[in-house]
């Protein structure tokens, strides 16, 4: 998995690519929680390059979202491939996360 932290029109974007599993999720957690600690909002996560996610990756996003809630933070997930989106759907997390097709859609919401 590769992580790129970007600024897009003044907003923080984490762009991920590759596979998120038990091996790579600790690096994702460190990146995400660093921004959550700074109370960054909205926090955009571009997942269109992510081809695989396991429960450890899902757990990182759930933890991040839960920690953002007390300060009204918004975590927006963008560009999920069908196979990744299906995991969110199966685990009923598509009802909890803000999921967008594109960065522009996420920025305009």
């Amino acid at each position, binding site marked *: 998995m590769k992580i790129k932290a970007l600024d897009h029109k003044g907003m923080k974007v984490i762009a991920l690519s590759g596979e998120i599993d038990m*091996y790579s999720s600790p690096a994702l957690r460190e990146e995400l929680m660093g921004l959550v600690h700074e109370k960054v909002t909205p926090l955009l996560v571009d997942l269109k390059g992510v081809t*695989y996610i396991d429960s450890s990756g899902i757990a990182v996003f759930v933890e991040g979202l*839960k920690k953002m809630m007390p300060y009204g933070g918004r975590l927006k997930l963008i560009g999920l491939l069908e*196979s990744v989106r299906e995991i969110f759907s*199966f685990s009923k997390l598509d009802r909890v996360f803000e999921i967008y097709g594109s960065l522009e859609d996420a920025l305009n919401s």
Partner: protein
Amino acid sequence: MKDIVVIKVQSNPKYLSIVRGVTAKMGEIYGLSDSATEDVRLAVDEACSNVIKHAYEGDITQNIIVKFRMSRKGFEVLIEDRGLKAHPESMEGRDLNDIRPGGLGLHLIKRAFDIFTFDDRKKKGNRLRLVRFRR
């Protein structure tokens, strides 16, 4: 007659991608659909992650043996370790309506496989047997 493939990997999470790759290939050879292959790949990954976390308590120097057995009846995966005994009676995935980190892996394993059992004849460690019947 069963076709059998066996792989042995170190209990280091960096090798989970190898397990996934082999699992996906075995699913393809067996003739699973693309979506079933993805489900099985994820389930085997989750099961091996559980071995690292729970049976080996994060020790990355141990071994995991994954055996694939393919027959007309179904697609079978045996996952063996020599770590702490699992307690299947206390294994329970979280309620999917209870949104919190963790507790999802077991659901992902059980949706892919029709049989999820631990072989209690194994003296040291665990042998998890997963079977997906031909559909």
